[in-house]
Each structure stands twice: as structure tokens, then as C-alpha cells.
């Protein structure tokens, strides 16, 4: 598949139909390819099970540069592409998308495989590309589970705990946070030009978690701001140097939204109104449902 991709990329670069190619470049280890833009040749372009990055996030950066960009997107990355498209952060005509098959991304620690796949790949149901101009090798995409509810298992486990246990669990996780903002910057919808936490204009600027409250505040507000926009692409959990299971926060909002307001997959299309910019006069539950459902 990699060879097919390189050939296609080189062809489009040379015939000028695209100005740059966004893919992965060989790292100095076999296991650490890095996202890169190719403008002349694609010799050291690679595509394997270590290419984890969600390249849609980088399309925002090149939006202003002239010329088209050829980008290779895994099925789950295409949801993020649609989400960015819906919020006018990128334009469809500036991208030539080749959907590539994905056999699951391997977890790397100290440049070695740990034998496991990324958390999102173990519960992956996003096997179809949402938006693409061309497909390469889409049949290799591994089908993990048909039951879309497997991804909520860990959340149900936490929900079953009593309030004290939940608080202790999250206190333990949040206390590990060093506010490196990797989760924020790697998250396609969480890409404000100026984040409220960096912006002293609104008295909410916060550079470090000075107290346990600020740890909670950062993660609650970050998850809240992407609620209804998060495509569950798993980048936040992957990039967190402290291995905090951040997907458990965003996916909790997804679980609530699906339960309360009907099944919604961000990035599935660019028309449907996001759950938090929409309402249903008679069916929306009252906030007290949170207290009644035990």
C-alpha cells in the first residue's frame, strides 16, 4: 500500500496538481515516523502501523498557504476533516484526500512496540472513510467490533463506582497532569486561535495547575468545549505524556449526548447541527435527569 501511495504522491507532485503532500516521513527509528510535508520528492515517505498522527489537524496550518495539498487520511481521521470543514477551518477544494486503509496503530514506548494497539483501535467502528477523493487499500481496514457500545465499557465501569470512588479515581488521574497542552494542541476541534486558558483578556488565563481545582477546571472545560464536536479520534490519550485516559472524558459527553439527544457522530457529515447548537423543544430531558438516574 505504501508503494502505491508514494507513486501516486510523486505523480501528483510532478504534474503539479498538488503543491505539497502531507504524509509521514521515515524517523530515525523504524517506529517513529513523523508527519511531514513533501514538496519535491517523496523518497523517505512511509506508511505503516506506526503512523498514528491525525493529519487533518495539520490541514488547518496550511489553509492559508496557496496551492492544493494531497493528504493521506485513515478512516477515523476523515471524521476530523469533516468537523474542521464544518467549522470553516479548512476548505474542501484545497485538499485532495486519499483515504488509506488502516490495520490499527501500534503503541510505541521507548521506540519499541508494546504489542498493544492504541485504545481507540481496540474499540474502532470507524472503518469507512467519510470524505475522500480516492481510496487506496481500504479493504485492509480491520473490523474490530460491530457493537458500537464497546467503547463505552470503561465509562460504564466508572459510572458504577460511587461518587467518592469516582472522585478519587479522577483526582489520581488529574494530579498527573503537567499542563503541557499536548491534548489541546493535538485535538482538531480544540484549535482556537487563542485559547481561553492562554488569554488574559477574560481573566481565565491559566498556565499551570496550581491547585487541584485548576486541574479539574482545565479538563472539564476542555472536554466541554469539544462536546458535540469531538469525533473520538483518540489523539488526546495517545499524545498525553502522563498517560491520562483523557478519552474517558470526551467519550462520556458522547455517551450522554447519544443517550439524551439521539445518536450523533461528529464529523459524519457537515450539515447536521451539533447537539449543543441545536435543541428539541419537547423531547430534551430536564437537567434533573442527572440526579434521577442514580
Amino acid at each position, binding site marked *: 500500500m505504501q508503494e502505491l501511495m508514494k507513486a501516486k504522491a510523486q505523480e501528483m507532485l510532478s504534474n503539479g496538481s498538488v503543491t505539497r503532500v502531507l504524509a509521514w516521513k521515515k524517523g530515525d*527509528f523504524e517506529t517513529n515516523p513523523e508527519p511531514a510535508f513533501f514538496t519535491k520528492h517523496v523518497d523517505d515517505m512511509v506508511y505503516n502501523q506506526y503512523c498514528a498522527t491525525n493529519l487533518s489537524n495539520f490541514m488547518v496550518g496550511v489553509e492559508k498557504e496557496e496551492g492544493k495539498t494531497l493528504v493521506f487520511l485513515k478512516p477515523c481521521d476523515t471524521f476530523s476533516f469533516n468537523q474542521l470543514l464544518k467549522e470553516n477551518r479548512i476548505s474542501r477544494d484545497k485538499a485532495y484526500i486519499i483515504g488509506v486503509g488502516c490495520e490499527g496503530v501500534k503503541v510505541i514506548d*521507548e*521506540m519499541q512496540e508494546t504489542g498493544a494497539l492504541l485504545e481507540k483501535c481496540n474499540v474502532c467502528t470507524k472503518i469507512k472513510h467519510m470524505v475522500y477523493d480516492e481510496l487506496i487499500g481500504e479493504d485492509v481496514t480491520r473490523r474490530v467490533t460491530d457493537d458500537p457500545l464497546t467503547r463505552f465499557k470503561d465509562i460504564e465501569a466508572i459510572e458504577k463506582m460511587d461518587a467518592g470512588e469516582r472522585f478519587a479515581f479522577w483526582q489520581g488521574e488529574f494530579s498527573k497532569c503537567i*499542563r503541557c*497542552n499536548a491534548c489541546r494542541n493535538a485535538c482538531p476541534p480544540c484549535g482556537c486561535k487563542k485559547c481561553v486558558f492562554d488569554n488574559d483578556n477574560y481573566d481565565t488565563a491559566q498556565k*499551570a495547575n*496550581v491547585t487541584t481545582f485548576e486541574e479539574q477546571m482545565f479538563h472539564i472545560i476542555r472536554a466541554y468545549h469539544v462536546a458535540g464536536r469531538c469525533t473520538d479520534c483518540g489523539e488526546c490519550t495517545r*499524545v498525553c505524556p502522563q*498517560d491520562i485516559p483523557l478519552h474517558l472524558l470526551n467519550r462520556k459527553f458522547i455517551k450522554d449526548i447519544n443517550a439524551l439527544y439521539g445518536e450523533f457522530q461528529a464529523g459524519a457529515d457537515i450539515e447536521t447541527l451539533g447537539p449543543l447548537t441545536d435543541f428539541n423543544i419537547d423531547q430534551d430531558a430536564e437537567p434533573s435527569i442527572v440526579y434521577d438516574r442514580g
Partner: protein
Amino acid sequence: MYKIDKDNLPELFKFLTKNGTDVFAPVRKGNQVNFESFTDEVASTLDLDTLKTVRSPKDFVLPQVEHLFDATIENKQIKLETSPLADKPYVIFGVRPCDVKGIEVLDNVYLKDPVDKFYQARRAQGVIISLACTNPQQTCFCKSFNIDAANPQGDIAIWLINDSLNWKSLTDKGANLTTQVKHLLQESSDIDEVEACQKDIQLKIDALPYSRGLPLDKFTPDKLLEIFNDARWDELSKACIACGTCTFICPTCQCYDVKDYDAGKKVKRYRCWDSCMYSDFTLMAHGNSRNTQKERFRQRYMHKLVYHPDKHHGEFSCVGCGRCVNKCPSSLNIVKVIKSFEVDN
């Protein structure tokens, strides 16, 4: 040279804690090993085998958040109250040679005048017990910065050889700690056991992929402008997502920002780690002198490889611990940067 069995380490720690010295040792929690305060509960999860802790021991000398002073206002009169300096002795056990050098790099910055009295107080209270790296990892490249993983520095050096620790104090701080715990140590003279272990470590280090020597000679202060204006920075920095991971886990990154917090009844001024990767780093009255990510990315490596050595007689502000190699979301790191300057264009 002394010896102590690995199993009665906890007893040693308990002894130290009893007479007023905090003990921090690498403890495994989930799949992460970090320096934690040593208590009975964590005794079982003491982990001397994992090479590197996720967060560097920098935390103990330059914590992420440090309160400087409180300002209160009484009937329109302002009163300042500075925070007390660190006054409790502590021991950090199991510091790897690269991290020991990292702390030394920080010393060269914070203890030169004007001396940072908060840092100085913390540093004075601390005793560093280093541990030789019996199994270095792929991402290590401390050799390039002529750090000898085989004989670690710090106040006390330790070699862990089949479950017994060879304990050698190097400084007087180390010496008087050794006298304190003398009754738990046994005299030992078999130096050759240690030397064998050192040779074994050096062999392993040489076999590491990064050990065949990085072209650090390209980075000399006089080439500053040439490197600064090099075109490669564009391409190198394209994939950087401007998060602060590399700076916060790096043992030698030393920049901080000073912030105020209005806590209602008083205003608390504190300093906290800052990252040159952030958009509001070096945000001055007129704005930010580095507006693009390329400039911020370049600043980080120029500081580590050119500006810092220029001011500290050639000492690089990197100790080759490899944490950034392992943790960068886009797999960028200092090794790739150095290697990319191998061939001058």
C-alpha cells in the same frame, strides 16, 4: 565502598524518614514510574529496573509551581508576606547519571549570581543518590554529552549488581548521609565486581543506535547566525504542534513565568514552568517577538545547543536522556535536529 541488600532498602528509607529526612524513590504507578515520597504503601512498588522516570527529578529543585509571596490589603494598606524557603532535608534515590547532570546544568543557571534563593534553599536540602544504568535504552544518547553512565555523579553513587547495592559516597553531603545510615551498611572492598559492571554498561552504551556520536561540533557559538538563518528550521518545525511536552519533561529546560492569582482575600504571586513552545512565551508589552512556530521551535534548540554552551563554557543544555525522543506527539526531537545539521548545505 559499602554494600546494602536491595531488600533492606525500605528499612534504610524508613530510618531516614523517622529522623526528619523526606525520601523520594522511583515508584511504579500503573505503567508510569515517577519519584514519589517513599511510604509503606508504595514500598512494594519500588522500581529500580525501569531506566527513566517519566518526569525528571527537576521537579524537586524547580517545581512546576512555586509560591513567591502573598499580598493582602487592609483598609487600603498593602502587606506582603514572602513564602518560607524550603527547610526540610530530603533524599532523591535512584537518579540516573543523565538526570544528575541535568540538575548540574540547572545549578549552573540558578546558582550563578544573581542566585535564586528559592532554588538554592531546595538544592541545599537535597542529597542526590545516583544509580548507574545497568540497562540503557534505545533513546539514550548521554554519551554524546560525555556523561559516563557507568560511573554516576551526585552525592552518592550506587551500582545495583544482582540485588545488592554498591554504595560509594562522592561528596561530603554524601559522606555525612553515609555516616547517618552507617549501621545499616556493610563495608565492602570488592571493587572489581563494580568495575566489571561498569565495563558491561559502557559496552551496552556503545551498542546504542544514537551512540555513534552526534555531530555536535556543528553547533559552536561562532556559527550562531549561520545556524539561526538556516533554511532547515522550516521543514524541521512544520510538524510541531506547539505543545509543551518536550519542555516540561526535559531535565534541563529551566524557563519559568511569573503569574498573580487573585484569591479574593489576598493576591498570590507564583512562578510556574513556561514553555518556549507556547504562543504567550516571552509575551512583552509590545506583543510577542516570536510569532511563528518555526521561531519558537528554533529558539528551543538554539538555546540548548548554542546559546547555553556559549555562556557556560561549552556545556550543552541537554543531557541525552531521550525523554523528548519518546514523548513528542509528532516524534520530533533534538537528535533529529542535530542529525539534520550533519551535512552542511
